[in-house]
């Protein structure tokens, strides 16, 4: 083949450029520690990295959500712990007062302590976490219970996302905890649904179902037969024992305390004795709620564990895709360096040679 000067020159230039661009590329990798800097370096890898980043952000958010929900649940739990203590104290007092050795004056004294306990419970029912009432349902900005023990909140459950497609309610509504509505096999009260709407269509259905549910519950409340209510003065209202008509098992803590107070002050021993079983039931009711909280916290804890594991996995996959292997880069870098030196050295010999140099 006939070789001309230009051919040698372009060849030399091309080789040097190739070496230099490889060197620059490797140098960049070594400096940034990344082998993936544009999507075209590795399109599938870049897509995966992007997906991982989004996931990582979501995981961070879920962790925040969980932290937040746990905080709320733990505040609720400690309040319920105090509630249980109060109920136990009330039961002790009731037991003491039920004995024959206790006279009317002592009963009246015990009665005033029971009254104190009732107002303590009222205070608990109106506790807040931050600026939100714990037991008001969705009505977090209004005091859930007035001093007569009437519930002003609703039964809304604030659902917090703990992972993709999964939600945990972080509150217990006051009418369950303190009024016993919808506790146990209560077929008179329709509880809010477990599932959370995730699309606009589901939301529309959800809103319709909620309206139905609200209507039913309202009707139920209006027709609520107070079979043995506080109207029968002096008698402990025992409707909170399994209601023969409605099958409701829940206990209205406030009216229970109220009745006990009345019984003590009227020195009605039978009524005091009648209050013992409902007190146990109330305690059970509170413990049931605490168990529910425990269950939710467990769910959140295991979700946190999952999140941590997934975060680590995510990071290692991302790193595998986009991070440069430093040892490999360094080896290649020194190789490329040697190659460039070699090219430059041979080039200087090839490029300067010419017949004219030898003609004198």
């Amino acid at each position, binding site marked *: 083949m006939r070789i001309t000067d230009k051919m040698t020159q372009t060849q030399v230039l091309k080789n040097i450029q190739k070496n230099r661009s490889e060197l620059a590329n490797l140098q960049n990798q070594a400096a940034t520690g990344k082998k993936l800097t544009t*999507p075209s370096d590795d399109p599938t890898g870049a897509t995966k990295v992007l997906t991982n980043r989004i996931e990582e952000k979501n995981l961070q958010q879920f962790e925040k959500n969980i932290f937040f929900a746990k905080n709320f649940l733990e505040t609720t739990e400690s309040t319920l712990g105090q509630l249980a203590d109060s109920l136990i104290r009330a039961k002790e007092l009731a037991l003491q007062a039920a004995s024959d050795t206790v006279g009317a004056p002592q009963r009246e004294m015990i009665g005033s302590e029971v009254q104190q306990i009732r107002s303590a419970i009222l205070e608990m029912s109106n506790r807040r976490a931050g600026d939100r009432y714990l037991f008001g349902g969705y009505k*977090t900005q209004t005091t859930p219970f007035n001093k007569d023990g009437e519930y002003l909140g609703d039964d809304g459950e604030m659902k917090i996302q703990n992972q993709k497609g999964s939600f945990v309610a972080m509150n217990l509504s006051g009418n369950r905890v303190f009024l016993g509505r919808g506790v146990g096999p209560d077929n008179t009260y329709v509880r809010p649904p477990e599932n959370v709407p*995730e699309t606009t269509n589901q939301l529309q259905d959800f809103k319709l179902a*909620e309206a139905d549910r609200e209507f039913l519950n309202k009707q139920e409340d209006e027709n609520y037969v107070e079979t043995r209510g506080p109207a029968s003065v002096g008698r402990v209202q025992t409707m909170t024992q399994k209601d023969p008509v409605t099958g409701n098992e829940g206990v209205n803590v406030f009216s229970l305390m109220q009745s006990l107070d009345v019984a003590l002050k009227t020195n009605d021993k039978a009524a005091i004795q009648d209050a013992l079983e409902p007190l146990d039931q109330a305690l059970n009711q509170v413990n049931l709620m605490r168990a529910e909280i425990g269950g939710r916290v467990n769910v959140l804890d295991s979700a946190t564990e999952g999140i941590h594991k997934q975060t680590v996995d995510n990071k290692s996959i991302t790193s595998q895709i986009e991070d440069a292997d430093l040892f490999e880069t360094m080896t290649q870098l020194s190789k490329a360096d040697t190659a460039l030196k070699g090219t430059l050295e041979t080039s200087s010999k090839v490029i300067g040679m010419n017949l004219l140099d030898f003609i004198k």
Partner: protein
Amino acid sequence: MAKIHSLLDVGRRGMSVSQSAMQTASHNIANKSVEGFSRQRVDIETNPAVGEGKDRVGTGSRLSGITRTNNPWIEKQIEREGSNLSFMEGRSNALQRLESAFNEQTVKGTSNAMSEFFNSFRELANNPESLTARTVVRDNANALIKNFQDVHRQIDSVTDELNNTIKTGVNEINGHVKEIAQLNEKIQSIEISGVTANDERDRRDLLVKKLAEKIDISWAEDTKSGMINITAGKTGVLVAGTSASELKTSTNENNQTQVVYQLGSSGKESDITEQLKHGALGGAVELRDGLVSQMRQNVSDLAYNIASEVNNAHLEGFDRYNKQGTEFFDIPKDGTFDVQDLKVNDAITRDVGRIAAASKPNAPGDNTVANVIHSLQFKKVMGDEGTFTFDDYYSSKVGEIGVMNQKSIAGLESQKNILDQVKNVRESVSGVSLDEEAQKMIEYQKAYEASARIIKMADEMFDTVLNLKRL
């Protein structure tokens, strides 16, 4: 009988031939680096002999012509591969810029903004009563919008650049076309006397190649006149003999630069943009009307779908004031959606309390609607059959551009190699070798010297003859 005179003639012709050859060698050396130059060769032939009785005595040599060493097939190959290369080059640059609009390896981009937008609704779900959470939702929505608009602006600047490529390309084409028509004329007038217009042909070949780098051309040489006729695309006759026609650019209704052909200076204009498939202009048109406008549409679709899905859910909700939710994003109802016009509803901008997180009134702690809105992030609502989530859709587009650019980079690399190879072959045939020219210089210098010596010798012979009497 041989004459001393003819000896003088032989010497003179020898000197003249050598001188021409030396001049050609120096011409070659001087033009060594001129693009498109083909080395030239002197063709020397034997001068007709004269009869001397029964013998014929040689009368030296003469110059029969100077020809260029050139293989038209190789030139044609360079033209084709050069056209392919500039097609790819034109795209590659713009693709890289397009890619950088979607590149989130080092900077935060749309994907990040989408995540933050939905996460701010998660934060709102945690705390629907909080004004801070609501403000963050509004700010992140604005950040998301700004991001979409930025991407659009970057895509638009790629489009502008491609339009500019077309405009400057057309200017260059017009310059080349004029020069080719002039060269046609020159070549015809030179070659009518039977010699080859070497340098003019080299220049014309080069211009044809440059033209092919810009635009689709087909051309043919009229063997009688040596002139070439060039057609751009299918219908744009650029050069016909000695007359040249111009290309023009116009702007269409989408604000895109189109290539228009006009016959003569006052002929009918016709849009030939569709016919351009090769060269830098073909590449620019293909990318602009293909991937770039498609990506612009994709970003627009993504923004529209997010906005309308969020709106649908938001309309179902109730705000802090127990009022039914408004639209979250302002989007036109008549389908003339433009990312640049997208904004958060004024009512919400003024008062974040208007953000609807609840599913019913009088429920400040109700986060149902906030939950629905952030759940949209995981819903498959994009694509023809709802096969992608917003994130997937965006990531897949990033992947698509990545693949395109990766292919373009690899293709460009291999096309460069192909062109280099063909150019090497051309160099091997037509390129100037200094060694060769130096060798020729020595050869002809010696020949020149020798021819001069013949004249001197003839002179001496004359002297001898003239001094016969004195001997």
